[in-house]
């Protein structure tokens, strides 16, 4: 069972995420990925990592609902078709997710990691190339092997924190 209190309160406030948003995100992800949607496991981690996953879906869903308020009543085929016709929402969500992850890692671990390294570590090549090709201007570069290894370690450390949300410098494992 997840609740809003499991997520970064700064993000919850800034993006106006409410319990209703959380319920809509769950419904949306299940529409796209099925009842046992793997993304729900990422969100259920809670804490900073879960917040990054929740933020992605909340931003994406808000954009999509702005274009089609009835989206959550669609059947699965129609929802997937609508999502695929509006992939700019996914790109926007990726940007918000990784800018948040980057800033949180820097604040928490004192490490500056490139967006490209974070995307490759967390979501691999397909999303990396989505961002590179997107019209949204984000500073994304192909990471070196050592940058990628560093990003991989930091993302895993952040995920391992679970619902703990230590403040600056307290998250170093």
């Amino acid at each position, binding site marked *: 069972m997840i609740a809003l209190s499991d997520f970064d309160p700064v993000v919850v406030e800034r993006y106006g995420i409410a319990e209703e948003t959380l319920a809509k995100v769950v419904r949306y992800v299940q529409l*796209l*990925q*099925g*009842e*046992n*949607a*793997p*993304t729900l*496991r*990422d969100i259920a981690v809670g804490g900073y990592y879960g917040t990054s*996953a929740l933020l992605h879906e909340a931003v994406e869903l808000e954009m999509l609902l702005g274009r089609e308020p009835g989206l959550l009543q669609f*059947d*699965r*085929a129609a929802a*997937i078709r609508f*999502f*695929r016709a509006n*992939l700019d929402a*996914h790109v926007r969500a990726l940007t918000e997710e990784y800018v948040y992850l980057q800033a949180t890692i820097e604040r928490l671990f004192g490490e500056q990691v490139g967006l490209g390294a974070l995307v490759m570590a*967390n*979501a*691999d*090549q*397909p*999303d990396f*190339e*989505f961002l590179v*090709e997107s019209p949204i201007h984000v500073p994304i570069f*192909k990471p070196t092997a050592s940058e990628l290894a560093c990003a991989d370690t930091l993302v895993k450390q952040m995920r391992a924190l679970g619902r703990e949300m230590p403040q600056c410098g307290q998250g170093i494992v």
Partner: protein
Amino acid sequence: MRARYRLIEKFYQGGGWFQGWFPWGVLYENVSGMFADRKVLIRSFPDDDRQTARHMGRRIVELEIDIESQIELVDESYPIRFRVSPTIHWVEGEDYRAIRQRLWDALFDAMRGRESEKEEQPAAPVYAPQPTYHVARETAENGGNDDPELVTKRLDN
């Protein structure tokens, strides 16, 4: 510049007529000039989770999967089923960006083709997921035929 590719299908469950194997992505030769540790890359619809991309990416690197490999993209324990079509196609373009666009078009064409096929069919019985198949291409050695005609040519209009 040209690149060979194969269609990746995903098994979708519980979606009315949207149930069964549907095009999900393409596996294509790495002509990007990046990702030196990978012989192939993936272009797919991003409606899946982060774990699937990581899982496939790791296998592509560790198993040194190439475009003709008879290796599955996900291991047997993975909860989501994918399969790679045995047919190898190719695209060409003036640069990598154009190749990526052609691959995207090909994926959409395949998806639309499959959807129209399904829509034209009367209510079909629901089948259990089938094991993934992974024949890359028969060779003369195993009784097949290496005739280049087998490699479908896709031209830019």
